[in-house]
């Protein structure tokens, strides 16, 4: 190590408290900047993993993004339906390999309940084309049987064979609504847990799965979202009714031949029976990212500003300390240090703080994400994939890191230049 570097290090250690705080500010701002980028990448990978096997999603004519979000991610409300007849026509189309109907709207302790068919267990794919697997039990076979996602079972402590009740409508919104929700429980129709799925890192983990018939049975004596007064149909009589589903919220479609997807999409969009919308999940995800790009850019701008604030803090601290160090600089000049050496000394100090700050920021970020990833998984059922858990910066992060380093080096030049000017003006006798 060169003598100037050692001198700078000794000098910085001498002021370790003020510089330490500045270092912390730089580290935090770097962590934030990289974190925003990493979160975006992670969310993207997580979302893509959740829809990996589905070629087409068919639903009512709403927005494509809306259809994708509720049918795959259980985000938002499914306000419209498509008829069960249309869903069956789709399933019989020669290009179609399988269909999975999706019927939403009920919740259990704020976890969404999904009405579907056995096809869900055989055809749904996530991650790298992985099928669902049962950790315990079996798929549902009949009425009032429920298969739990892994997180549902874990969070609520449910076992195979346990009886549970499902509540109607979306999760509670306020205290008042909660009272209503309790009144509106399907308390008379207990479900039995027959299976628990292995973790997938997708919203499946947070879902309770029942048959479409169970879903219809739940709502036999309901109308317009509330129980019909005076009408109560006990569970044992439910089987006597026609429980064939009348409608579903969406249908996930897998094709025999992936390149038929555009032909199939056209078939859906020009469907004669009722207005339908067919979306390619991958395309709609890209559309979603496009829409979110504004918010993303705003976040990026904010985190860039935070970095600027951190660097400004560094400049301020070094500049403020400079006056006290004029004597030190004069001594160095008297023993032969050139003004260029003084400039270099201050630069080394600044670059040292920036470099350490970047390293600390990266370490901090890795620590935070290691801690947060399991939380995101339980809270949103999203395995934040990609670089999220990684400790080393991803390739895409290096340019950002380099940019921070360059900006920091440039910022360090301000106090260095000032010290240079001071040492020229002061010479051997600083006028403090």
């Amino acid at each position, binding site marked *: 190590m060169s*003598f100037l570097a050692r*001198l700078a290090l*000794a*000098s910085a*250690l*001498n002021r370790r408290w003020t510089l330490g705080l500045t270092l912390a500010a730089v580290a935090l701002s770097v962590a934030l900047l990289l974190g925003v980028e990493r979160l975006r990448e992670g969310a993207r990978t997580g979302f893509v993993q959740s829809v990996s096997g589905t070629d087409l999603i068919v639903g009512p004519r709403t927005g494509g993004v809306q259809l994708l979000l509720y049918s795959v991610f259980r985000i938002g409300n499914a306000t419209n339906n498509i008829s069960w007849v249309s869903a069956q026509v789709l399933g019989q189309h020669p290009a179609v390999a399988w269909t999975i109907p999706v019927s939403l709207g009920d919740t259990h302790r704020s976890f969404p309940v999904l009405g579907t068919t056995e096809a869900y267990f055989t055809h749904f794919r996530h991650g790298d084309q992985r099928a669902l697997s049962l950790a315990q039990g079996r798929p549902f076979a009949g009425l009032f049987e429920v298969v739990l996602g892994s997180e549902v079972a874990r969070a609520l402590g449910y076992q195979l064979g346990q009886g549970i009740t499902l509540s109607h409508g979306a999760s509670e919104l306020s205290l008042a609504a909660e009272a209503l929700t309790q009144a509106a429980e399907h308390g008379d129709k207990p479900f039995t847990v027959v299976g628990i799925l292995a973790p997938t890192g997708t919203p499946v983990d947070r879902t309770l799965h029942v048959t479409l018939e169970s879903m219809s049975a739940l709502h036999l004596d309901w109308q317009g979202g509330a129980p019909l007064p005076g009408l109560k149909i006990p569970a044992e009589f439910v089987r006597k009714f026609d429980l064939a589903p009348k409608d579903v919220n969406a249908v996930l479609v897998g094709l025999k031949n992936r390149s038929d997807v555009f032909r199939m999409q056209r078939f859906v969009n020009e469907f004669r029976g009722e207005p339908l919308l067919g979306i390619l999940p991958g395309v709609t995800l890209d559309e979603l990212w496009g829409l979110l790009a504004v918010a993303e850019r705003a976040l990026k701008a904010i985190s860039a500003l935070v970095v600027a604030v951190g660097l400004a803090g560094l400049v301020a601290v070094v500049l403020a300390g400079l006056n006290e160090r004029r*004597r*030190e600089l*004069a*001594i*160095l*000049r*008297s*023993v*032969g*240090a*050139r*003004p*260029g*050496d003084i400039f270099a000394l201050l630069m080394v100090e600044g670059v040292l703080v920036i470099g350490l700050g970047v390293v600390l920021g990266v370490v901090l970020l890795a620590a935070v994400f290691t801690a947060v990833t399991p939380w995101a998984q339980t809270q949103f059922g999203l395995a934040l994939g990609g670089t999220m858990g990684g400790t080393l910066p991803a390739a895409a992060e290096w340019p950002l890191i380099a940019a921070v380093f360059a900006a920091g080096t440039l910022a360090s030049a301000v106090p260095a230049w000032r010290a240079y000017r001071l040492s020229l003006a002061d*010479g*051997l*006798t600083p006028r403090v």
Partner: protein
Amino acid sequence: MRAAPACISAQSLRYRWPGQAADCLNCVQMEIRAGERVFLHGASGAGKSTLLGLVAGVLVPSAGELLVMGQSLAALSGPQRDVFRADHMGILFQQFNLIPYLPVLDNVLLPCRFSRRRLSRCTQPADPVQDARRLLDHLEIGVELHGRAASQLSVGQQQRVAAARALIGRPELVIADEPTSALDAARQSAFLDLLARECGESGATLLFVSHDLRLQAHFDRVVSL
């Protein structure tokens, strides 16, 4: 006896601080021979520090000629003057002479870091620490203090460490700007004796600046500004 060569020679030397109406130094004539121990006397504000700045090559004369060891400093570029100063001069200030966070030994060795000539003039260029320890020993700084941070030393000790630093690598000229002003009378005298002795031993010219005429007994000659 043949006169020794001139160490410092000033002819009609003038200096005016930028933005000032009057000259700070006005027509200074001065001749200091190599090996002389000179007491430069002047009242406060007489331009003593300015003259030192000129000799050290930190300031450039407004007019007139200044030769140090036969070299016109005005003819050198800024960086060349910095090298010249590091190579040929040891400098002592009134106080706060040391980098507070460096150990005593590293403070003494500073000139060897910036000047190759000073390093090569040590008795063992490969190991300048030997010279540093010897000088510290001569200046009565105990071995137990060598590794200590400079800020932990008393003012008197600090000035002696600074003297060791000014002397290491046997520079031709030692400039001292009231280095004893922070010391009491008994310590002033002892310090000056040490400084004069060490300059004599290494053959350095000593230019000592003070407003305190009582100190002149330690010097060969008094020059007044």
